[in-house]
Each structure stands twice: as structure tokens, then as C-alpha cells.
């Protein structure tokens, strides 16, 4: 601080505790004296501090109970010292909340165990080979068998085609074609009209 500088209230109140016990140097002491002479607010602050100091002096120091330090240390080291609980935990004092939380945990475990992984929920895979079943007697004959055979051979060349199944389809159709061919080698049936008549 410069010599002769005017003291502000905030600066004086900052150093009042040291002033009260005469710890300031002479120049600073004089500057505070000069300020207190003209500032009633700082004088009241000084008086309050002096009263507090008198009280401490009057009552004197208190000696802690014997063993208090060790008791605190033992409590900390044993891990029994409790932390303050967050308020939301109080919800768990209510039975419905406990039941709901238990249900949620059990449902989560069940879901994790049973739910399908890696895609949308899928329909159950039907039984693969339930045994022979003919669908309403639908059979490709003659001309249709001829076409299905060609289609099956073509489909059999697909990259992920059921090669053996499509070939079987083609062969079944071909067997049907052969049967038709044998029938046609019999005397011509009635009712087969030239195409021009059919249209």
C-alpha cells in the first residue's frame, strides 16, 4: 500500500481481525485508525469482532472427551460410516414399488433368456417333414408338366437354388409328360379340335 493512501471500507474490514489483535504494522495501523475515525460502519464491525473475541477469551478452550478421536477413526475404518442417501431411495419404502421393481427384474431376465436375437420377431418354424400330403390332388399333366420341367431346370441353376429339389420337380413333371405321351400314342381321342376352332 502506498503511503497516505485512503482506505476503503472493504479493505478495512478485510484486515480488521488483524487490527483488533494489533498485528498490523504502524503505517497500516495508522491508516485504519484514520478510516475508523470517519466511518461509523467500520467502527460497528470492529466492535462486533471485539465482542466475539471477548466471548472466546471468557469461555476458554474445550478439551474433547477421551477416546473420541479413536472412536471416530474406528468407525471410518470399519466401513460402518453411512453416507447420506439420495431422496429417491425413499420410494422403495413402499410395497407396490418393491413389487413392481421385482417384477421388472424378473421380466427382464425372462426376456433376455427367451426373446429372439438378431431380427424381428419371427413366426415359429413349421414342421419340416410332416409326411406326405397331396394338396387337393393338384397335379401337373401333359403340357403343364412340360412347362414346369423347363421352369424347374431353369430355377435349379439359381445361386442358392434347391438343386436336388428342383431337379426332382423337373423329373416328376417329365414322368408325367412321358405318361401323357404314352396315352397320346393310343388312337386319337375325340374332342381335340384344331386351334382355329378353339379360338
Amino acid at each position: 500500500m502506498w503511503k497516505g493512501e485512503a482506505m476503503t471500507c472493504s479493505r478495512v474490514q478485510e484486515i480488521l481481525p488483524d487490527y483488533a489483535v494489533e498485528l498490523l504494522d504502524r503505517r497500516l495501523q495508522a491508516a485504519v485508525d484514520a478510516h475508523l475515525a470517519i466511518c461509523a460502519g467500520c467502527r460497528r464491525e470492529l466492535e462486533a469482532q471485539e465482542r466475539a473475541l471477548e466471548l472466546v477469551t471468557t469461555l476458554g478452550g474445550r478439551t474433547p472427551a477421551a477416546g473420541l478421536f479413536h472412536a471416530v477413526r474406528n468407525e471410518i475404518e470399519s466401513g460402518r460410516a453411512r453416507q447420506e442417501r439420495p431422496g429417491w431411495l425413499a420410494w422403495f419404502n413402499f410395497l407396490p414399488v418393491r413389487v413392481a421393481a421385482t417384477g421388472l427384474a424378473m421380466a427382464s431376465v425372462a426376456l433376455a433368456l427367451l426373446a429372439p436375437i438378431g431380427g424381428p420377431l419371427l413366426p415359429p418354424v413349421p414342421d419340416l417333414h410332416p409326411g406326405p400330403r397331396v394338396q387337393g390332388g393338384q397335379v401337373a399333366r401333359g403340357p403343364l408338366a412340360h412347362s414346369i420341367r423347363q421352369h424347374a431346370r431353369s430355377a435349379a441353376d439359381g445361386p442358392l437354388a434347391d438343386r436336388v429339389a428342383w431337379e426332382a420337380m423337373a423329373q416328376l413333371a417329365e414322368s408325367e409328360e412321358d405318361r401323357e405321351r404314352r396315352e397320346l400314342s393310343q388312337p386319337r381321342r375325340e374332342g381335340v379340335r384344331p386351334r382355329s376352332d378353339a379360338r
Partner: protein
Amino acid sequence: MTRKVFLAAVSAGLVAAAGIWAFRAGRSSPGAEPDTESLVRRAWVDSKLVALEGDQEIQVEDGRVLRAHVLTSRQGDLRIEYRSAPLAGITVWETPTRTYRYSPRSQRLTVTERLASPTEDAGRELQLIRNYAVHRSGEEEVAGRTAIRVDLRPRSGKGTWKQIWIDRETAVILRSDAQTARGRIVRSTRFTQVRYLPAGSEPDAAAFMPGPALMKQLVRDSGSAIERLDLPELNRRAGFAVRLPAQLPRGYTLSGAYETSCPCRTPHSAARLEFTDGLNTLSLFQCGSPRCTSAENCFAAGGEAPQAVRAERDGIYFLAVGDLPRAELDQLIRSAK
């Protein structure tokens, strides 16, 4: 129960649930295992180059269950011997370029050439991935082997979808189910037993060709033309203007136009247009030739089949065959112009 014990139990339950979920997701997610699409690619490329022999059980469209013995080589050869009625005795030999078929009933051996194009395969692969969502749906044992189950579901539309079971080690497809959108299995193939053949013990090339005695009965299979034509050439050969559908089922594109024979009694040509969505194939047959002798024997005739729809429009007989709802096959024909 004190509040502290109760809270610990609830927390443990939730943590256990999270742990179980993470474990299961980790076991089946594409991130933890080889990428599912890569696995499918292996299944359609590498698995055809594995030497094995095994027995298969096949359920076809009409519900019949058939049995066959299968032999394959590392060169992509295949032999199928059907062992149950009504196909018992029928044998198919296939090399990368040819397919031979022998029927003991007709005592006829036919041969057709095969289309093999890596470019085409790559295009079809892209189309499949674009049109189908591929994801792993589990792991099961098939024919004593650990197999990864993969679903291929259409990203849109209601066409047939597929589940395939891929051998975890060899990528061979051990089981394959084609299902309708409603979950009805329309076609299914599965190995009931399989044995991989170590190098040195696999059969030689002769196992994948008919014997010399059968070769004397060889005829070309006229019903399975494989030459792809452009439309003007197909129109010329078929003798009428082939109609192209204006509305295709979602994801399908034209993959080939072929000359075929009309099934009526008079020998003449007809047309077959082939469409694919990468997984399934759709054929549209049509005949408008004035040489056709009988409507009853053209594409509009011949019993019933669940996957076939036919119609006559403007003097042309159509037949659509494919794994699609009948309404979509019908729409395909209606939009043909």
C-alpha cells in the same frame, strides 16, 4: 427382506438380464461371427467346390417326400441318384458345362449344356442382397453337423422366402426351406447324413459322367434350350410378337429370353421369358403361333399346379410359373403387351 438386500436383488436381476442378452446377442450378431452376407456368399460359391457324399430328403410342392443320394467333387461336379418312388433309378450327372439325365423308365439319356457366367453370378448376387434381408436366426444341428440358420426375407412384397442352414465349417447348405409369406413350406431339402471326402479319397471324373453303355442312348434334350436370344430374334423364331409384361413383381428383372417348344402336337416354337429377383425364378411361357393345333394342348392346358397361372389374351396363350402369389402371376400376364 431389508431394503438393502431387496435393492441388491433387483439390481442383480437387471444386471443378469443385461448380461444374458449381451451374451446371446454377441453369439448371434454378425459383428461377433463372420458377417452373414459373407457366409451366404461362401454358401453359394465355395460350397459347390466341396467333395462330399450324403443322403437327402426332399419335400416337393405337392407334399411328397423323396430321397436321393448326392455326390459332389471339388471341381463343381454333382451326381444325384433318386432312390424313392416315383423317381427311383433316375440319375443326374452334372459338370460345370453339361447336365446328363437318365430315366430307367424311358431308357433315355439326355444332355443339356449349362450356362456358366461369373459376371452373371455376380449380378445375381447383388440383386439378391438388394432384394432380400439376410440375417442369422440361430444355430442348429443338421445331419450331425453344426449349422448356422440364415433367413432370406424379401425386403418388400410377399414372395417366397428362404431359410438355409449353412455348415459352420464348410459353408455347405445342409438344409433349405422355401416358405410362403404365411409360413407354409413349399419346398424343402435337407441332408439326413453327410460325409465330407478328404483330398485323395474323392471319386474321379468318371463318377460324374454316364457310363459308356448309357452314352449309346444319348439324345439332346430339346425341351431345355439354353441359348439366350434378343427379342427380335425370339420373335422371328417363335413366329409371333412376344409380349413383355409391363408390370413385374417387385425386385424382378428379365434374365433371359428363350425359344422353347410348344407342347401341342404340331412341332413349332414358342417363347419363354425368364425373370429373377436374385433368389427366385419366374417363367412366362407364351405361344401365339398360327401353327399351334390345339388350345387343349398348348400352355393353357394340363391339369393344375399351385405355382402356375394361365390365361389367353389377344390370341396368345400364356402360362406363368413361379414362387409367387397367384394374384401376382395373374397380374404379370395381364400386363403383358
